[in-house]
Structures are given as C-alpha cells and as structure tokens.
C-alpha cells in the first residue's frame, strides 16, 4: 500500500482525480522516488537505467486500459528532470493520465521538468491528460517545464489535454509532433495564470503524410500581472489539414502574446489559424447579473465556462 501524506493525496486528487490507488498500470512518483508502481499483463512500466524516468510499453492491441503516472512534490528546493517514454503498440487504444502537483511551502524553488516521448504505433489511439497544479504559500517558486514529443505512425490518433489552472509560477511548455499519413493529433490546452506567473507554450506540428491532420486549440485566461505566450506552428508537408486556435481572455494587468504560424510546403496542404484576445464582454456580465449573479460571480462563471 502506498504511503502518502494528506498534502500528497490532495495533489494527486488535483492532478489525476485519484482518490485511491488507481486501477490498471500506474507509477506514482513522490519527491523524486517511486511511491508505488504496478504493471499489468499488457502494460509494462520499468525504470530507465541511464537517466531518471520510465519506459512504458503498451502491447499491440491493448484496449480499454489506462496508465496513471502522476508526480507530486512537497519538498521545497527539489529540482528534477524526468524522461518518460511511451511505446504504444499497433492498434492499441489506451488512456494515459500524467500530471504534476507541487506544494512548496519553503523559500527555495521547486522544479519538475518532465520530458514525455510518445511513439504511437500504426492505427493506435491514445488519450493523454496532463494536469499541472501548484499550492503552498512559501516564497519558493513552483516551476514546471514539460516537453512533449509525439511520433505518430500511419492511421494513429492522439488526443492530448493539457491543463494548468492554478498555482504554477513558471512554465515553459514545448510540444512537437511528427505525423505520418492518415494520423490525427488533437490538442486541447487550458491555461489560467495569476499573480506574477509566466507561461509559455510552444508547439511545432509537422504534418508529413497524406491525410494527416492536427487541431491545436488553446483557451487561456491571464489575470493580475501574469504573462502568457502561445506560439503554435503547423507545418504542412503533404496533402493535409491543420488548424490552430488561440482564444484568450485578459484581465487586470495580464498580458498575452499569441504567435500562430502556418507553413505550407505542399500545394495540397490546408492550414488555418485563428487567434483572439480580449477582455470579458460587458454584455456577458450584464446578462448573468440580470439573472441575479454579482459581478464577481458572473466573472467566475464566464471564466469557468471558457476553460471547460
């Protein structure tokens, strides 16, 4: 049985919706050590030998199974770089729940840089959920720099949900993807920054094979004095479809820089980008206030809905 204190349990609930030990395969990393691990008949989790991290091997044809690999950090001043590689066998269909929660009550920075590489086999499907959460009132920063590389074989499908709503002071996210013919990547990023936080998100998606498609959508809210940069580039190297969208609400003194980019290297590449930044529309507030909400409650409803 896992030994986790209340703060660690709370972090697990926030990042992985875990109340108990998960079913199926899992590895729970707590303060740089494995606090529990389980492989299954179809999903094998082993530690890397050269660097810190895991290899997660999912057998071809594995269906309806999940892998949980949450990370929690409660020691102030901890810094780590972790490399996790996922090998998803041909025709598999699995859910992968990652996520990192940092509680920093101390005055030293805590930092987790998780580098995730996905090798998605032919016709395999994955749904990947990554949530970030920070808490603790120490002056030390909570820093998360996720790197995600996705290599998609023919006919594969990957849906990635990246969520960071609270408490992470500094993030630089880099996501790259290489898509073969007929594969599809869907990214849904949701981000809210407060205080003096800074969040940078870079995407480069290469659509290399005929019929490859990508849909990268970010919804974000920047409050207080926070800063966000969304830099998404979709490259069409074949007859393909690419769409990127950045939709942001700014509040207070928040700042957002959106840099959507498209590069078409094939005459049959169809690429679209949309970007919109603005404050909450006054009429939305008026409508909800006319239903009896206060201005603050109305604002909360609008933001919660926007980040759903």
């Amino acid at each position: 049985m896992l030994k986790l204190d209340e703060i660690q349990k709370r972090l697990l609930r926030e990042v992985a919706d875990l109340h108990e030990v998960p079913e199926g395969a899992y590895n729970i990393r707590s303060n740089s050590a494995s606090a529990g691990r389980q492989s299954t008949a179809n999903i094998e989790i082993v530690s890397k030998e050269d660097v810190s991290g895991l290899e997660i091997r999912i057998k071809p044809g594995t269906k309806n199974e999940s892998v949980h690999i949450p990370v929690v950090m409660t020691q102030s001043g901890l810094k780590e770089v972790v490399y996790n590689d996922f090998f998803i066998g041909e025709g598999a269909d699995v859910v992968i729940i990652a996520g990192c929660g940092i509680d920093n009550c101390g005055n030293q920075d805590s930092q987790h840089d998780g580098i995730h590489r996905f090798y998605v086999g032919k016709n395999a499907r994955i749904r990947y959920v990554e949530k970030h959460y920070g808490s603790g009132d120490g002056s030390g920063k909570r820093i998360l720099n996720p790197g995600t590389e996705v290599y998609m074989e023919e006919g594969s499908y990957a849906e990635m949900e990246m969520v960071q709503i609270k408490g992470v002071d500094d993030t630089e996210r880099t996501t790259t993807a290489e898509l073969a013919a007929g594969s599809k990547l869907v990214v849904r990023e949701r981000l809210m920054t407060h205080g003096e936080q800074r969040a940078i998100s870079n995407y480069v998606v290469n659509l290399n094979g005929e019929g490859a498609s990508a849909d990268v959508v970010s919804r974000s809210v920047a409050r207080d004095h926070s800063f966000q940069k969304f830099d998404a580039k979709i490259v069409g190297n074949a007859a393909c479809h690419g769409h990127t969208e950045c939709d942001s609400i700014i509040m207070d003194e928040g700042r957002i820089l959106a840099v959507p980019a498209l590069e078409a290297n094939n005459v049959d590449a169809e690429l679209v980008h949309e970007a919109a930044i603005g404050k909450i529309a006054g009429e939305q507030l008026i409508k909800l206030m006319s239903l009896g909400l206060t201005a603050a409650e109305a604002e909360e409803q609008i933001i919660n809905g926007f980040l759903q």
Partner: protein
Amino acid sequence: MLELRNVSFQVDAEGKDKEIIRNISLTIPDRKLVVVTGPNGGGKSTLAKLIAGIEKPTEGHIFFNGEEITELGITERAQKGIAYAFQQPVRFKGIRVLDLIRIAAGKTLSISDACEYLSAVGMCARDYVDREVNASLSGGELKRIEIATVLARKAVLSVFDEPEAGIDLWSFRNLTEVFQQMREDIRESSILIISHQERILEIADEIIVLKDGQVEKQGTRNEVYPNLMINEKAAVCEGPFKMPAKGETEC
C-alpha cells in the same frame, strides 16, 4: 408593482445632450401584461434597460413594490425579482444551455426540470441542454433560450425586449401562449413586453405607446388598441419585424 416617476435619460451625442426618455411617469400594476409599443427610436429599449438597471436615469425615481430602486444595480434588481430578456441574446463560450437555465433558476435544477423550460419555448430539450450558448446556435434558437432563462427566473416582473424579433420557424401563436401560460403560472407577477407585433398587442391587458421618449398613450387594450390600429399603423409597420397579423397582409 413598478412605478416610474418623472424619469428622464440623456446621452451625450456628438457633444450635445440627447434626451432619449423625457420625463416619463408610468405604473406597471401587478397581475398585468403590459405591452409597450411605438415607433423605432421612441425610447422603448431604453425604458426596458432603465427598469433592469442596465442604464440609470439622469433624472427621476423608480419604485418597485414601494421601495425606491433608482440607485440599485442590475444584480440587486434581479435579486428583488426583476427579470430581463435581451433583444439580442448574448453568446458564451463554454457555458451550456443547462448552466444558463440553472443560473437563472438560482438553484440546481434537475435536467428534466430544466428541459421543461426549453419545451415551453418549443425546443426539443434533450437536443439542447448540453449545447454551448455560442455561435453554433442560430439567432432564433438563442432567442428562445433567452426567453426560457426568463421563464426559469419566475420573476415578480419580467421584461421582454422585442421577444418576437428573430424568432424563426416558430409560430407566433406559440410565443403568445408562452406569455399567457406565464401569466397563469406566476401569480401576482407582471409582464412587460416591448413589441411591435399585433398578436402580442392583442393579448395585452394594458398598452403603452412610447413616442419621442414620452408616453403618448396608456390605457387598457380596448382603449388603446383600436386607435393604435388607425393612427399608429404606419409607425408600427415600420418595425423590424413585419410578420402580417391575422388575416392581414397590407403591412
């Protein structure tokens, strides 16, 4: 009961004061369905906004059930029982129809209870409760959802600003039935509808004709409506919505 006493509303138009509402005094009694009509630009929508608290009068006083509400904001007026249906409904990314109806009801309604309000405005509820109130809905759908949110409020005074505008593919009979049903369901309440539509005028208890920011006429339907048909017909027909009234096409 709502009472406006000597209410005026001015805006600054190109450096000059423009009076949209000019010293209006009127009363919306309990248990009455009152329709405000009149030519475009006469101040009807502004009147509705002054009642809902979206605009504040530059002069005069507003009383609701005997209490002065002139300085109260939108939220406080809503909490006191004033509901307001927008002429042009607002869109929200991520907020579902169900969420909006629940906010309007002020409590966690079951899905089937929420669906009743949608059914009341002629929508196949199950198809809509989980939809986002965003641009994927047509203008007519949004308008009906707007009316449903006001029904869900069960307010003491419900104000509708041109509910018929944009109601596509849905017969007027149904819209008037919604108001008549509302009158039966919410006792002691009153309904104020801004409308050009003859079928809505026909179900009014009282009619107020607003022109150039002033009340030109106020009285029972029988007092005002026949004259309106003769004198105001041209003005009414200039309205944005030109659906012919029963048996008439000359509009």
